[in-house]
């Protein structure tokens, strides 16, 4: 299932699922992660402090003072594909987006770089069904892929000090949504009025790893209807 496990410091292993980035491998990563997370007794008894899935890796952080690395390794190696592959979570989440120029502050720039019109960019973006590869960087930020090659642009050479909450931005093969105001270097092409992270909910995430996401167009008037 995975290629190998290696220790990167006194408190962490990386489970490596290979160098390829695609939805099939990422689904295995997510399901493997969900399986570990669902087994709370094991997490506690082994002293696992974090289990962090990404495209094709999982970071396992543990309490080094328990001195039970070999037990953790044994457990991680004992998880079989048949244990995990029945967990499916690929429902499509619809996310409203407004491409008004007030929000889409890099759309002109992306249009120049890709030699596509703004409408062409919007069409491609709206017609993409994204896979949620992971949540991270900051609370609730989803990494969505894989973006159409035609929209592939580099990150901005100098990151913005503040990107507004809800901004939808692209770089390389990926699209992200900023759940909160944050510094950021991605190219902003629109904005959603939805809250992606609600710390008062038992599950604070609107979008889960493994979900599918499709954007749907709203205008500026609709955008303000979402405001409380």
């Amino acid at each position, binding site marked *: 299932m995975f290629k190998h496990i*290696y220790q*990167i410091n*006194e408190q962490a292993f990386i489970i490596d699922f290979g160098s390829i980035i695609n939805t099939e491998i990422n689904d295995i990563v997510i399901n493997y992660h969900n399986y570990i997370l669902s087994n709370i007794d094991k997490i506690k008894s082994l002293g696992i402090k974090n289990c962090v899935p990404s495209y094709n*890796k999982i970071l396992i952080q543990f309490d080094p003072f328990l001195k039970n690395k070999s037990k953790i390794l044994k457990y991680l190696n004992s998880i079989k594909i048949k244990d995990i592959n029945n967990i499916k979570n690929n429902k499509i989440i619809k996310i409203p987006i407004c491409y008004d120029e007030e929000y889409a502050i890099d759309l002109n720039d992306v249009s120049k770089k890709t030699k596509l019109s703004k409408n062409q960019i919007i069409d491609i973006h709206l017609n993409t069904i994204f896979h949620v590869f992971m949540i991270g960087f900051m*609370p609730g930020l989803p990494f969505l892929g894989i973006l159409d090659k035609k929209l592939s642009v580099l990150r901005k050479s100098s990151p913005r000090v503040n990107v507004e909450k809800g901004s939808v931005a692209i770089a390389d093969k990926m699209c992200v949504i900023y759940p909160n105001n944050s510094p950021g270097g991605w190219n902003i092409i629109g904005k959603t009025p939805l809250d992606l992270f609600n710390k008062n909910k038992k599950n604070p995430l609107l979008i889960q790893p493994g979900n599918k996401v499709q954007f749907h167009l709203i205008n500026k008037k609709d955008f303000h209807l979402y405001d409380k």
Partner: protein
Amino acid sequence: MINKYFKVLRSGTHTTFQDKGFINLQHLGITTSGVVDNELAFIANSLVNNNIYAPIIEFAYQGPRLKLIKGSCRFAISGNVNFNIIKNNKTIIGKTNQTYKLEEGEILDILSTIKSNYGYFAIEGSFKIKKEFNSNSTLTNSKIGSNNGNCLKENQKIYFTKSGSNYNSYININQRKIDKFIRVVSGPQMNFFMLKVIKKFFNNSFIVSNITNRVGVRLEGNIIKSIKSHNIASEGITKGAIQIPANGNPIILLNDHPTIGGYPKIANVILADVYKIAQYPIGTKFSFKKVNLDEAENILFEKEKNLRKILNQIKIL
């Protein structure tokens, strides 16, 4: 019961409540956070008979100025810190690593850290604060945790419940020496760097830039360039990781680091030395020294043993 409380007269540079941090939430994008310098926090908490991970106030550079409006309390400050206690218009110069009793109307003024960045303020019975995600830590860049995810603010109240006991305790420890080397283990992407670049990394010294905070420490003075890409497929990260961005100036991750990172990691500061790099003042010149994982683990366990010994040496004044 009437709530006892302090009023914040001056908030200080970056003053937050901390404990052991957020556990098992990194997959949601919530990083561990927690006290930067465990040893100092453990000492301050132990002096006032608290659990070592009881909520504590961490301050950086300039600390807070607090007036005890209601109640009395016994407190301790740890670190290399300048502070005063103001009783009846008389100023008493405070000493770290011992407790004091503060009475109603008196002021504690934590002026600054000395040749270091972080210090700790603990009170007997600890502070009465609201947990978030099962932790009393504060992750200010995500607005999550105690105090609504914010630093202490001027005029806010800090509540507590226990009246201060009438005895003081102290602990005899030497002021820390500032080592000029930081021990590291190889990073998972060390092979992104040519042998001569790795040699440069270890042989030449670095300088702590003016960007040093709870998220990380940026270094200057020794440009490190990778031969492969400046980016990797983002993966989970832990504190101590040394990332090399495109400009070649390393970034060492600390407690409030992003949960995943896309820069190659040349090395990882050993856990026993992470506090050292966090405490280096801006402009500190130092170099890295390589150890292997077994050595890193042994150093960590040895440090833990020594810390237990230190904590057992608390005496009543």
